[in-house]
């Protein structure tokens, strides 16, 4: 898309417009009221309009002013880190803190270029023990420590 001269600004503008439209769209049924008696829909709608306006300025200006290209060297870290976090969230209530910690640490470790299995496993066990002693016992965290079938 050669007509976009400043992709960072352009897509930031598009993001603002999208959020603005979503904000107004979701607030569609919230009563607006009047300026003197503001309903719950008044402020969100006003913010949505401002956000769309700012987004338009950014995107249109980006067609004219030159800027740096977007850079995505690798998608590995974002996928793995977010994935590991979600796995932790899914595992913790059923499988308990220890297993969830081991999953989180090993999965997230693979995001590094210098990943090696042995080190990751040792680190995960060490952190699991630490989490058990420091958080589950010390801070009284309300998470099961062990999987449901072992408790």
């Amino acid at each position, binding site marked *: 898309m050669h007509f976009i001269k400043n992709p960072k600004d352009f897509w930031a503008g598009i993001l603002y417009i999208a959020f603005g439209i979503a*904000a107004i769209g979701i607030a569609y049924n919230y009563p607006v009221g009047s300026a003197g008696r503001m309903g719950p829909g008044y402020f969100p709608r006003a913010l949505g309009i401002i956000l769309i306006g700012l987004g338009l300025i950014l995107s249109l200006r980006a067609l004219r002013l030159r800027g740096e290209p977007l850079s995505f060297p690798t998608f590995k870290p974002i996928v793995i880190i977010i994935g590991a976090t979600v796995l932790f969230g899914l595992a913790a209530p059923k499988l308990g803190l220890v297993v969830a910690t081991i999953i989180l640490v090993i999965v997230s470790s693979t995001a590094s270029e210098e990943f090696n299995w042995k080190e990751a496993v040792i680190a995960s066990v060490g952190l699991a023990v630490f989490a058990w002693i420091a958080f589950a016992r010390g801070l009284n965290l309300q998470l099961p420590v062990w999987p449901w079938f072992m408790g």
Partner: protein
Amino acid sequence: MEILSHLALGFSVAVTLQNVLYAFVGVLLGTLIGVLPGIGPVPTIAMLLPITYALPPVAALIMLAGIYYGAQYGGSTTAILVNLPGESSAVVTCIDGYQMARQGRAGKALAVAAIGSFIAGTFATMLIAGFAPPLADVALKFGPAEYFSLMVLGLIAAVVLASGSLVKAIGMIVLGLLLGIAGTDVNSGLQRYTFGIAELSDGIGFVTVAMGLFGFAEIIVNLEHRGKREIFTKGVSDLMLKWHEFKEALPAILRGTGIGSVLGILPGGGAMLSAFASYMVEKKLAKDPSRFGKGAIEGVAGPESANNAGSQASFIPMLTLGIPPNAVMALMVGAMTIHSIQPGPQVMTSNPDLFWGLIASMWIGNLMLVVLNLPLIGIWVKLLQVPYRLLYPAILLFCCIGVYSINNNVFDVFITAVFGILGWIFVKLECEPAPLLLGFILGPMMEENLRRALLLSRGDATVFVTRPISAVMLGMAVVMLLIIVAPSIRKKRDEAFHE
């Protein structure tokens, strides 16, 4: 002397065995996390915040302030030894601090940073004690219209003083305001932007937002850029300054303290701006400016003092007006709200022991930095030598457990993941997350004051310009915007940030 009796009250609250202990633990933990490369004060505070939930309010705030100082000093340590600034205000410290470390004077650089921070902190504490009461008296007379205009001014000033595109930054504020009002509307009881999810009826947790945008996004971006870090720890145990070094550093410390105290009250990049300004002043005043960038001790002493005075002075608008001038103070406001203290001018009269206790504990926190960090420097250096591939999974784990422990609910972990993705997108698009956090904290307050102001004026929007104080504040906001938009000045501003 009223100020003395206030401070006496403060010290009587802060200097109990229990509170000194909390300040100590706060400084220790703050430094411990803050020294880790790539973690600035915001994710550090967000990560450690849940620990303070169970404490009584005074102790919690004292510990948080300790965490903040610790995190900041930890950041300076990383800047000096590894050339990695944890936040924008430490960038300047990197220039000469890292050079000093390369020359085997790491210990001296760290010592002068600690001494400078202590002197600056002492002065800024007095400044807060002196300035807070009159400012709060003025703020007590504010009506909703004045408050709304004050928030507009604060938010605009925060983005004007930051680097980067103005339109983008204002967009981030608006986005933050929108995210901030999600949850149950206080007036109508209507659930806004909750998608029928029960966990969202209290709004989105500010810790999850801060952790996702600052902590997670930071880890992801760090992993994308592979780079070798070189740590210079030679001479790190040699902390004693020679007399001539001290004589070189002291005027820089005093000037930095002055600059930081003045500029730090400004919203936004107060601390960063003071550090830059101090560095430029020192370079101008030096007999031989060519030493700068090659390990000049004034280049560490000045900016570090300015930075610390500035960040401490930023407590003033937060404590007296309830308006957070930067992302760290936004977290502090959030923390106070959790202990059901609404920050603002009334805190000083309704909770005097909390207010003055916090101020006294600031000085204690600064003292502990010197007493604690310099002798423990060996431990911090060891932490710095842990490879990043082992550090970040641990950081991630502490983030996840910290977020979980807020409500004992994994829902918050998922929300943090969502904000992690959003934060990563923001980094890619060069959108600063700090204005979003300010907007997020101020969102509900801003709507409430706008609503009340217009209710009182029966829908007449001119109330914001017919009430004099409100008009002046809005006028200042407009002038600031015009100054930035004017092309000639804009060019100079860009040059200043490039330096």
